[in-house]
């Protein structure tokens, strides 16, 4: 049995809070992570992602709330006794041990018979494509290889949950794409439960089954990549996941979950998403806004402030009464020159109402 398998389990946070002295790093977070899924914690630096992850690992103890792994309460269990492995941002390979010894390390403490330890470790190294590098020292590997050793070392323990803390941040851009696809592939092939921390929204959208966006120690939104992109719950998420233009608008009326929205001279009919009449905010992706002739019906008058042709598309900044709007246009046959007056039109599906 010298192959790496999965023991994927669920993770549940029940109103978990972590304080350092009077400072709250994680505030009343509740989470449900399904077994066999890759869930990303996404958010700007300092929002509490690492702290959340370390509480899953048992490296930090929750100040309040309960943490369950595989249905068992592990709130007070230290890291040693949790069946969770973690890949550190710095990799944390033991510099005095060879690659092989590093990978065997955890197996030695798991009651695996001696003979199997080597086989398993070898299988782990094969899985990450480093079968021939067992005898090297970590310092004799490139950054990407070190990173894969760290992954193998965590994988071979067949943990209930595998944790990654910004695993790609020390890699160059090309490798990043490659490694993240590898991680995703291994996760899907083995059916692992993975919690993955990153501050890079593109990375999060690419690898995740589900994304938990955090901001200022709380969860801003929790959903599939598509949910987050298409239906952000608030301005922060809308802006953090892909770019968005945020407008102040006025909901005039709501009927049958369709809101009539006034944005200056423009009137839009949009899904109300629980909003009630009154002031609200509207988020629109740059690709969901079009340029029309100046004065066209139901458009916002504006003037081109900046115009950039980038081959596959054109990018504009248009100044209007409602502020500067960033627009990406697929129409490259006719490029609007700066200073030209235009009308800004909104695609029928695309703009989303969010809470004021």
């Amino acid at each position, binding site marked *: 049995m010298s192959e790496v398998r999965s023991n994927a389990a669920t993770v549940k946070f029940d109103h978990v809070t972590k304080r350092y002295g009077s400072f709250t790093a994680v505030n009343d977070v509740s989470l449900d992570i399904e077994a066999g899924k890759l869930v990303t914690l996404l958010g700007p630096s300092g929002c509490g992602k690492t702290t959340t992850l370390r509480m899953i690992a048992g490296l930090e*103890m929750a100040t309040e709330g309960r943490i369950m792994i*595989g249905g068992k309460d592990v709130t007070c269990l230290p890291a040693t006794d949790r069946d969770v492995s*973690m890949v*550190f941002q710095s990799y944390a390979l033991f510099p*005095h041990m060879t690659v092989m010894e590093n990978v065997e390390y955890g197996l030695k403490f798991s009651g695996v018979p001696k003979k199997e330890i080597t086989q398993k470790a070898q299988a782990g190294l094969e899985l990450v494509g480093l079968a021939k590098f067992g005898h090297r020292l*970590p310092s*004799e590997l490139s950054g990407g290889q070190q990173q894969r050793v760290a992954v193998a*070392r*965590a994988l071979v*323990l067949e943990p209930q949950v595998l944790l990654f803390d910004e695993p790609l941040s020390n890699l160059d851009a090309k490798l990043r794409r490659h490694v993240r696809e590898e991680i995703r592939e291994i996760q899907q092939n083995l059916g692992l439960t993975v919690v993955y921390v990153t501050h890079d929204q593109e990375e999060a959208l690419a690898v995740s089954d589900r994304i938990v966006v955090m901001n200022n120690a709380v969860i801003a939104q929790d959903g599939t990549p598509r949910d987050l992109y298409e239906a952000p719950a608030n301005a922060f998420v809308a802006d953090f996941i892909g770019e968005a233009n945020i407008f102040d608008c006025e909901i005039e009326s709501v009927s049958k979950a369709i809101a009539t929205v006034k944005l200056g001279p423009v009137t839009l009919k949009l899904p109300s998403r629980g909003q009630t009449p009154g002031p609200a905010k509207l988020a629109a992706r740059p690709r969901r806004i079009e340029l029309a002739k100046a004065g066209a019906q139901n458009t916002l008058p504006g003037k081109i402030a900046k115009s950039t042709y980038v081959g596959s598309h054109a990018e504009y900044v248009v100044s209007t009464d409602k502020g500067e709007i960033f627009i990406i246009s697929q129409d490259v046959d006719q490029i609007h020159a700066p200073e030209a007056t235009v009308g800004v039109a909104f695609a029928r599906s695309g703009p989303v109402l969010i809470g004021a």
Partner: protein
Amino acid sequence: MRAESSTAGFHPTVLLWLAVGWIGYAVVPWYGLDDNFFLLGWLLDGYPLDDDVAPALFLNLQGQKLWLAPFALLLALPLTLYGRNRNDPLFGKLLIAVGAIGMGWFFMQGFGIGLRGWNFAWLNQLFGELDDRQFGMGYGALLTVTAFLFLFCVGLAARGAVGGDVFVVSAIGFVVATVGVFIFMPVLQMLANALVTPDGGYSLGSFISKIFSERLWSLGCFTGTRCGVALNSLFLAILVGVLTTLLGLVFALVATRTGFRYRRLLRALTVLPIITPPFVIGLAIILLFGLSGAVTQFVSGIFGIQPTRWVYGLPGLLMAQVLAFTPIAFLVLIGVVEGVSPSMEEASQTLRANRWQTFWNVSLPLMRPGLANAFLLGFIESMADFGNPLVLGGNFDVLSTEIFFAIVGAQNDPAQAAVLAIVLLFFTLGAFYAQRFWLGRKSYTTMSGKGDAGVHPRLPSLLEKGLFTVAGLWAFFTIFVYATIFYGSFVTRWGIDYSLTLQHYVKSFSIGRTEHGIHFSGAAWSSFWTTIEIALISAPLTAAIGLVTAYLLVRQHFKGKEAFEFGTMLSFAIPGTVIGVAYVIAFNVPPIELTGTGIILVLSFIFRNMPVGVRAGIASMSQIDKSLDESSLTLGANSWQTFRKVILPLLRPAILAALVYSFVRAMTAISAIIFLVSARYDMSTSYIVGRVENNEYGIAIAYSTVLIVVMLIVIGLMQLVVGSRRIGRRGVESDMSQSRTNVAAPVVQTPGAG
């Protein structure tokens, strides 16, 4: 969840300590024996029934020493925990209670009942005359109280202390207990003497007048008379601290950062003074610059100057101490200089800093912890140095010798000694806090878990030249001093008769043959073997307790950590003379009766030298990134396994430094030893000082030479055993010898293959 090891039956740790406790109570003799315990002679001496060798159980069964009987009950109670899980509240509470009551009762009976029945008058009044008595405690007692201590710790851990970690709680408990018994208790007993008046009463007034006396604080040396003892010590210590730190840094840089070809020679040279009993350098200085010294005679011959005693006092002391203590600074700094991550320096260079700017702005600041440590060590070593002031001090009185003379001299004034000790402590602790303040809260972590790849840049060439010059001059001086020592050991009578002879060696180290085989007939053999034995026993113990303490300080968070740190570092600030006197006072009578044994020597070495292990450990450990421990923990290792498999191997340079240093200190120390040696356990240094007092300089120097050679050999062997830390840095594999803490002669590096 990871499989919990055996939950049924007994918790294995509890079982272990219960077994130890019962062995102590029921199997091993409770009281101290006249003979060496490990020779097992007691087994034939009427064991187990005879009073002298009986275990506590058999004494109690015979109706004697019934105050020991409660231990049986206490050791039986945890048996009720059979089958209970450690999360059960009763589990923790019972163990805490048993441990605490056991330890409490242990010390109460120990201090309460002594050689003449009750030790205190009020106990006599309360319970009436006791017509039994007890002697110093032995191994049985030791095992039993150890068991109580650790049961207590297991209990605390089960109740959730320090995250429920048994290893960490036990380690803390052990360090606290031993430091308490072997440092605080004796030192407090001695300091209590500061309040004692000559007629046996207590007085605060006389204490105050003593502590602010002219004798200590006079500024006379600025107006032509003499300065106070305290100021002399302070002045000397600051000078020595600064000079040794600078020189140590120079050598560390030359040894690791330059293309210097004779680095190895330099290393060997810097090591020599470490393995030399300090007063030997003092002696050599006298042989060279004293009234009838070789250099003095030579110079006065040429220039016709009248020889003076200028070298006795500050100049000679400064020379001797800088020679003696620079290598300590070197040892501290070389680890730090190597530990500075090359990629930091490379990063700096890519940020357009030139070599000099890189050195000044990156390398040097990263060495700050090392510099501060080196200064602190030099300062405290100088304050505590006893041998050199004894030989070279002249009219320049310092605190350490004053303490000695206050006790053994005609004054015989323990109160004065205690006052002087308080002043000394004030200075050393002040330095300790100044250092902490200077370091602040910055992180100096440079060894990340990433397996650092990179090469240290060369130093600016002007700096390099300067370093070579200083190192060269110093090397020359050192060689000169040692040549003097070596030559002096073959000279019939220095200053009078320079003819060569072997008589000093023959007298001390001759080996005869008798019909029983080889017979060590030389006069020095007995003290020589004792010294080796004691040093070999205490070195690993010192290193172990020092590194465990460092681990607790750097890596663990627990309540009272500040106090813990203060306590463990305190012995650092207590000079040997004080420890010596304190031990004599505290361990002369039951319950801990150790004077005249070898154990008291070992203990004094362990607790005197422990801070060096702690310092070395802290310095290296704070350069190991915490994510290494954490990843080990998430990989399923517990804290003990993490300590053993990850931290210890990465600490090899620190272990080696601690081992070497404590071994060497044990071989060369004199200050505490001079109070603690006995006819049976005489040590080399006190024997040599005895020769010096008899004006047998030849024998003294010959013996010192032999010691130096022996230490060189032992250090070489230790280096082989401990090995080096193999983490590899790009580009220097072929020259690994330069990038590790190489203390002695070069050792062949085993090629790192698999």
